[in-house]
């Protein structure tokens, strides 16, 4: 279960590649698809590795990507506690 999730605003991206290069867990890669300005935005290749650290969001000069922490699945824990 991934601890985080990456959200990408494709149309803002200018394909500088900062997020792909500096993601600590190598979640991203530049895709072969184009956005409307003709850049190749990143896409998520290893969603399970994302830690939600938001370093991609701090590096992105175009405010086009950000990471968020995914809350731990609490239902499982609650079920474990009842046993």
């Amino acid at each position: 279960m991934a601890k985080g999730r990456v959200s990408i605003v494709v149309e803002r991206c200018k394909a500088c590649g900062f997020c792909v290069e500096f993601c600590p867990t190598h979640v991203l890669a530049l895709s072969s698809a184009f956005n409307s300005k003709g850049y190749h935005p990143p896409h998520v290749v290893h969603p399970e590795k994302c830690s939600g650290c938001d370093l991609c969001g701090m590096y992105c000069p175009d405010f086009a990507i950000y990471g968020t922490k995914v809350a731990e699945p609490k239902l499982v824990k609650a079920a474990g506690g009842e046993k």
Partner: protein
Amino acid sequence: MLNIDDTVNPVEPFLRSDRMPHIWCPGCGIGTTVNSFARALIDSKIDLESLALVSGIGCTGRVAGYVKLDSFHTTHGRAIPFATGLKLANPKLNVVVYSGDGDLSAIGGNHLIHAARRNIDLKVICVNNLIYAMTGGQTAPTTPGHATTSTNPYGTFEPAFNLPHLVEAAGAVYVARWTTFHVRQLARSISEAFQKKGFSFIEVISPCPTLYQRRNKMGDGLDTMKYYKEKSKVKHGTPTSEVGLTLNGEIAVGKFVDRDRPDYQSMMRAQYVESLGERYIEEPEVECVCG
């Protein structure tokens, strides 16, 4: 106050989203510095109603137009005089000057040293891309020796300004330098500067892939970020005389100066109380009535 919602980019509440995408080139580091600035505002829990951002002319000057804060895009080089006026008229404001190296150290160089000398309570963020970027890549006072620019096609030969050294000598109380690679450190540094009373100066080395890096065959923005990662050394407290920049050389980063000096307004008050005594009556505070 801001509601931090995890379904939008954390920097989004600080941006005028209708003006996006911005004009900065692919690989330019100015947007990255805005991210760090926004994170610093979140972390330091600054009241955005009491914050004003002033910028001059240039690529970095555009920041004033892209942030959803009380911001002012001033004439060339005059960001610091405008900010000084704001601060003197309304001392409760947190005034941030967000501008480039050309605007702050060349056209406004005079204002920079005198604001530091007077120790006016301003937070200056200087995005240094080592060149005049918006006007076509001319040699700036910060361009390191031997770099090729549009006005020095055979290489620059002028000695460059070492900005941390300049502002420390002039009297700044907080001097730090980071690169756009050091996003978290930069955010922390900006938060620290908000805690300081007096002239704080944070220099951020940023790539200009279109003009500086391309002419000097240093690759694109990403290559420059890798160079920053490889060649920058964190040297907190290093004497600023040793942190000058060279072409392709090591970049000393860190917090160089953190000291305390009375700021302009407390010196002014102390002087008037000393010479006028009872006759000195402080002006009542300015109240802005909105609506």
